[in-house]
């Protein structure tokens, strides 16, 4: 069976292969039924179509009525850019699909600069989509695009509006281009950090059509035809967690990725990637890039907060903010100090690390290595004061504590690592274990005495309350506020252990 995954933050789990309705554009009812038969055979549960896909919506309607509208996550698109046209087209799509609502309405191929501006304008298509959502005609709003500049454009779109999904071309041929690959990684990182569903198209691209382009091709590119190559190409997409693959617009091609998606990964995949000229970047490179993108996004977020308060500068010295902004550096020397040895000075166009000459080299080579913050170093005897008019940690804390609560995937990884490492730690050569007592205990020192670690493997869980998502430099034991294993509710009340056990 084709696996499912959460479709972004929508709460819906979709099969990772999404049925692409473009294949039904010129199909007869009978042909459409045969193609849609695959949806049932492979238990797909997510259909993606568009107002502009010929008769696709009309072909889907009777089938959907028969099989049950509620069994499927139904997505369509409007390519109109003005409010009035988009509003009308969305309603037309619902009528054509024979349903009172779609699950996802997408702004179709929103890439061109002029169209993009129009769609976001007050009388633009986005307003129609939002109205449709508010009226219950669509549950979520997405954006799609083709072409090489779509990746950057999607990021801009996501900065303007919290779209629930994106869709863009993703295949080994295009990713062989380092610029496209970098843009793709940046977009994927952004989507992952915000829970935006990531749909990909053109998975089975061989190349742009060369000499032998058929008269009326049903795909924009020359598709792979060899089933083994298709398997590899599909695996190339699905091998990456979090991506959905939308099947192709050719009726023939659309069926093959579905079948391929069920097959196991092949060991020849890396060789094939290498032949396609695609080199996965090293873990280090990928991590640096993720961190840089996150840091930039966070600086932008602070600028937004500043703009909302009519300010233009921030000077942040608290370690929590330094660590959040740099995704992991708190420039700490003294643990008990609230502030580190560096501050972040954010202006409308600049974001600098301000520190002393004695710390600058270390920060550049260690804490901030891989990031692109300029470092401004001043000698220790020059007073470091907050620039006039700049907002401080305290000014922004109420908003920042909320923003800091949203952690990125790379921070999740650190948390998992920290949790696992702390969980496997054996203080004094023993394992943590649940602590229980049959007599009242009045002070934490009692608990410490009663629940000394013993050689036991029965423990399940203990507190790690002050885990810090940013830390990459501190040892996990330092991060455990309590070294005492704590009793979990509902576990047996075995008498507490003595040290002789």
């Amino acid at each position, binding site marked *: 069976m084709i696996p499912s995954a*959460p479709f972004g*933050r929508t709460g819906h789990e979709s099969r990772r292969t999404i049925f692409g309705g473009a294949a039904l554009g010129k199909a007869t009812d009978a042909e459409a039924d045969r193609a849609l038969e695959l949806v049932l055979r492979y238990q797909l549960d997510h259909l993606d179509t568009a107002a502009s896909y010929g008769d696709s919506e009309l072909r889907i309607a009777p089938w959907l009525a028969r099989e049950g509208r509620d069994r499927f996550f139904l997505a369509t698109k409007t390519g109109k850019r003005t409010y009035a046209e988009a509003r009308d087209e969305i309603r037309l799509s619902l009528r054509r699909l024979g349903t009172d609502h779609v699950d996802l309405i997408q702004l179709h191929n929103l890439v061109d600069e002029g169209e993009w501006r129009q769609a976001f304008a007050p009388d633009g298509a986005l307003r129609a989509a939002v109205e449709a959502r508010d009226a219950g005609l669509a549950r979520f709003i997405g954006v799609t695009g083709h072409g090489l500049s779509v990746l950057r454009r999607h990021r801009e779109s996501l900065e303007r509006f919290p779209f629930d999904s994106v869709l863009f071309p993703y295949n080994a041929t295009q990713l062989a281009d380092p610029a496209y690959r970098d843009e793709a990684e940046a977009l994927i990182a952004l989507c992952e950090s915000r829970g935006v569903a990531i749909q990909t198209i053109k998975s089975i691209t061989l190349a742009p059509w060369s000499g032998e382009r058929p008269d009326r091709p049903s795909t924009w590119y020359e598709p792979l035809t060899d089933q083994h190559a298709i398997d590899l190409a599909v695996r190339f997409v699905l091998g990456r967690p979090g991506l959905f693959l939308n099947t192709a617009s050719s009726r023939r091609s659309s069926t093959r990725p579905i079948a391929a998606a069920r097959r196991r990964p092949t060991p020849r995949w890396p060789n094939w990637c290498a032949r396609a000229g695609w080199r996965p970047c090293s873990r280090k490179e990928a991590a640096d890039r993720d961190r840089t993108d996150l840091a930039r996004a966070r600086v932008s977020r602070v600028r937004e907060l500043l703009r909302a308060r009519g300010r233009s500068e921030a000077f942040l010295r608290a370690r929590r903010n330094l660590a*959040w902004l740099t995704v992991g550096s708190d420039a700490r020397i003294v643990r008990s100090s609230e502030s580190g040895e560096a501050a972040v000075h954010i202006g409308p166009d600049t974001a600098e690390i301000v520190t002393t000459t004695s710390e600058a080299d270390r920060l550049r080579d260690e804490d901030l290595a891989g990031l692109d913050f300029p470092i401004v170093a001043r000698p220790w005897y020059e007073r470091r004061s907050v620039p006039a008019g700049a907002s401080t940690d305290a000014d922004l804390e109420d908003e920042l*504590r909320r923003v800091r609560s*949203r952690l990125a995937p790379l*921070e999740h990884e650190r948390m998992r690592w920290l949790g696992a490492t702390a969980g496997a730690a054996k203080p004094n050569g023993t394992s943590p274990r649940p602590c229980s007592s049959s007599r009242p205990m009045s002070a934490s020192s009692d608990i410490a005495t009663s629940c000394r670690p013993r050689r036991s493997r029965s*423990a399940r869980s203990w*507190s790690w*309350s002050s885990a810090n*998502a940013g830390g990459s430099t501190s040892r996990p034991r330092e991060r455990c506020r309590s070294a005492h294993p704590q009793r979990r509710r509902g576990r047996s009340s075995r008498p507490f252990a003595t040290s002789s056990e």
Partner: protein
Amino acid sequence: MHERTRAGARLRDVFDAARRAYAEAGYPDEWRRLHLGGTIGYQPREVVASFDDDDIIEPGMAFAWNPSLGAAKVEDTLLLTAAGQELVTRVAE
């Protein structure tokens, strides 16, 4: 509290559910003695859940709920991703 920590819910929903649980267990005022936790990130607590906390829970957030009863307190670190909940503080068995 873990059960209530779902994307789309509000922090106060979790807090309210915990207070109801205390009341049902016969300790209606126990929650006053210690906060019950909230989101974590770059501080031991970023947002401590309380009344009128309309912050929406989103995938990507991490939580440390710490209900207590008398001298006993439990606390795990819970990560909420698009894929669901993950308990990151788990001791090897």
